[in-house]
């Protein structure tokens, strides 16, 4: 009997202890939990740009990549803390191949030339640091934070297709010379997969990062990740839901408001989707289709001289295909779209497939229109590469012809006031276009 009593007393003591533990542990965590608020968007002050560059119209094109035989795609560009630019993209034998790595090059403002490209991070390096199998790498995004820290976010996949993606983050405090090891952002409860990045982040007043991301697994929808200045995920907010909207590009319009333009992956004919926030990215309006067409392709937007009035958008304003990339200006109502410049277009206005010989002639002409000291050498190397192949498989398919594509633009504005767009040029080169406000006004 006494044994039973002892057992009952022991059980009651243990249960009381457990009760105390439950209360204490949950209470401690509750007290420790920080309630994050989302600060206002950091808007670039127009006065912060050196307007000297705006005195004369300026427009310049270059190739940022230098390899002639790799499949290159999904470029992103950022200013460097002490002048110049850095562009990143993924390159390899084909999209999704295991030899794809993240390449980069730097733009020297003195010589107005891009350096030889170099590998910034490889699949193997990511695998070694993260200590998990990495099957392929994907979209990279580079951005300069207000504290002069350079951030690189890039996609990696361990299993399956792009739906199995996770986002990795690296940073550099010395202008991209040395980088931290990659770290996986935790963004999804389902094996931490299905989150991708494509467009540049925006920043908040406290230096925290607003990273537009998207899901591509069971659904295709966009989200806004709020990261601390040191890259920890603080919160995330849904921009859209469903199966048809992805790759958001976010443009702050004021401290409180921002616009997100989204790629439309719905049924054709498709138009660009737009969503607005009025509370610093915490809630977003239901995406609506605007006037501009979107052939299920990535687009990029940035605020122009006056954030509340002008927005520049680089996109394929086409019902189908990606054979023309154009620069448009609009306002936050998104009702008035004005074409400013066709950045690149295929010889055939309808984007029909070209015979390989026609493609060769066309690209030679296009190639020579791109400036730079080494462009002649680059062209010879490129033509030699084409001569060694029956078809350039990045662009041409046997028996079908060659599909000219200008796609995946990325936009930024540097401290000297210049606008910079980088995009995939026939999946063969990363093209860089720079222009200033004076040139933009001339286009009106």
């Amino acid at each position, binding site marked *: 009997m006494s044994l039973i009593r002892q057992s009952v007393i022991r059980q009651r003591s243990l249960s009381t202890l457990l009760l105390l533990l439950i209360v204490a542990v949950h209470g401690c965590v509750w007290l420790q939990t920080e309630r994050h608020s989302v600060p206002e968007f950091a808007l670039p002050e127009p006065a912060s740009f050196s307007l000297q560059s705006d005195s004369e119209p300026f427009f310049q094109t270059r190739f940022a990549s230098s390899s002639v035989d790799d499949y290159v795609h999904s470029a992103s560009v950022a200013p460097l803390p002490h002048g110049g630019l850095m562009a990143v993209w993924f390159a390899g034998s084909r999209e999704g191949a295991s030899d794809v790595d993240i390449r980069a090059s730097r733009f020297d403002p003195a010589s107005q030339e891009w350096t030889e490209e170099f590998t910034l991070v490889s699949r193997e390096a990511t695998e070694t640091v993260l200590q998990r199998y990495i099957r392929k790498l994907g979209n990279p995004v580079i951005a300069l934070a207000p504290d002069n820290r350079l951030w690189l976010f890039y996609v990696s996949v361990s299993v399956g297709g792009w739906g199995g993606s996770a986002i990795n983050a690296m940073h550099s405090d010395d202008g991209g010379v040395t980088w931290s090891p990659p770290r996986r952002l*935790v963004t999804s409860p*389902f094996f931490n997969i299905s989150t991708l990045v494509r467009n540049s982040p925006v920043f908040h007043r406290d230096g925290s990062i607003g990273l537009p991301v998207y899901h591509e697994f069971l*659904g295709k929808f966009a989200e806004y990740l709020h990261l601390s200045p040191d890259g920890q995920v*603080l919160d995330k907010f849904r921009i859209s839901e469903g199966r048809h909207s992805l790759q958001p590009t976010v443009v702050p319009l004021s401290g409180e408001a921002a616009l997100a333009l989204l790629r439309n992956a719905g049924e054709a004919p498709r138009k660009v989707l737009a969503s607005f926030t009025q509370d610093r990215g915490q809630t977003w309006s239901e995406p609506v289709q605007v006037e501009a067409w979107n052939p299920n392709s990535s687009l990029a937007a940035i605020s122009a001289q006056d954030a509340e009035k002008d927005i520049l958008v680089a996109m394929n304003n086409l019902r189908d295909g990606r054979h023309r990339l154009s620069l448009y200006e609009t306002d936050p109502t998104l009702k008035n779209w004005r074409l400013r410049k066709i950045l690149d277009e295929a010889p055939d206005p309808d984007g029909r497939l070209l015979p390989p010989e026609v493609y060769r002639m066309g690209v030679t002409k296009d190639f020579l229109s791109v400036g730079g000291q080494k462009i002649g050498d680059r062209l010879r190397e490129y033509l030699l590469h084409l001569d060694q192949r029956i078809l350039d498989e990045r662009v041409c398919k046997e028996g079908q012809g060659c599909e000219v594509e200008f796609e995946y633009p990325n936009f930024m504005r540097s401290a000297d006031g210049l606008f910079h767009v980088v995009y995939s040029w026939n999946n063969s080169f990363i093209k860089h276009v720079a222009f200033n406000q004076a040139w933009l006004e001339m286009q009106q």
Partner: protein
Amino acid sequence: MNTGIILSHIPFALALFLLLPTGKLPAGARFAALAGAALFTMIPVDGLSLAEYVRSLTNDLSITSLLWLAWCAGARIGGIRATSGRRHLQLALCFSALALLLYPAAMGMSMFDPYRLGYAPSYLLVFVFAISMALWLVRHYFGAALITAATAVFMLDFRSPDNYWDYLIDPLLALYCLSVVGWYVLRRIWRNLKERFVWNLSTDMTRPAFENSPKGLISSMANLCPEEGVNVIICDNGEIQRHIEACTRSKLLHADQI
């Protein structure tokens, strides 16, 4: 070796051990099997261990999964009392509910994303505290301790994920719990269908188990298991179990022995 890697080897080794048919082996051999499973996870293939390959697929398991696996492995080796079938089912039900609350919405079925509640988890903590208290009140101390331990590890924050949900639940735990609950529901449906069929065939079928027992006990047991009194068993701790495997054999008293 960082904590993430340790946390990838341990659950893989424990899961592997639990999948091995070691139930009838002596305790020493079972321990050796666990050690063998741990060594197996470390086999390198192309520069990565097997555990790291599995981790590439599964991501890090939650603390609750890890502790539950450890408890089950401890029970298999001996020295730790296994949770009863009913307790196991209750816990599976609890995690299934959490999984259904989290995964469909987090993967895009609604604009509301419950996963974001785990980044600064004030509201989620209140909810999880309520679950822990509910488990404690129904004397499911194992479940309450499991969730409290996961919360404590989140507080200590030595793991890399920074979302509270990732400490509480993971897709493999969700899948396991949903399977347990689904299997139970299917068995119940099958049993009910079978009993209805038998009842219709033999009209003189009765419920004989407690006919000679005290009246109060009969009525209370009939309320608990109105359709199958014959299977009702009483443990020495006073819990009424429906199945003989729910209690260890040494602690059983059959209804007709009272």
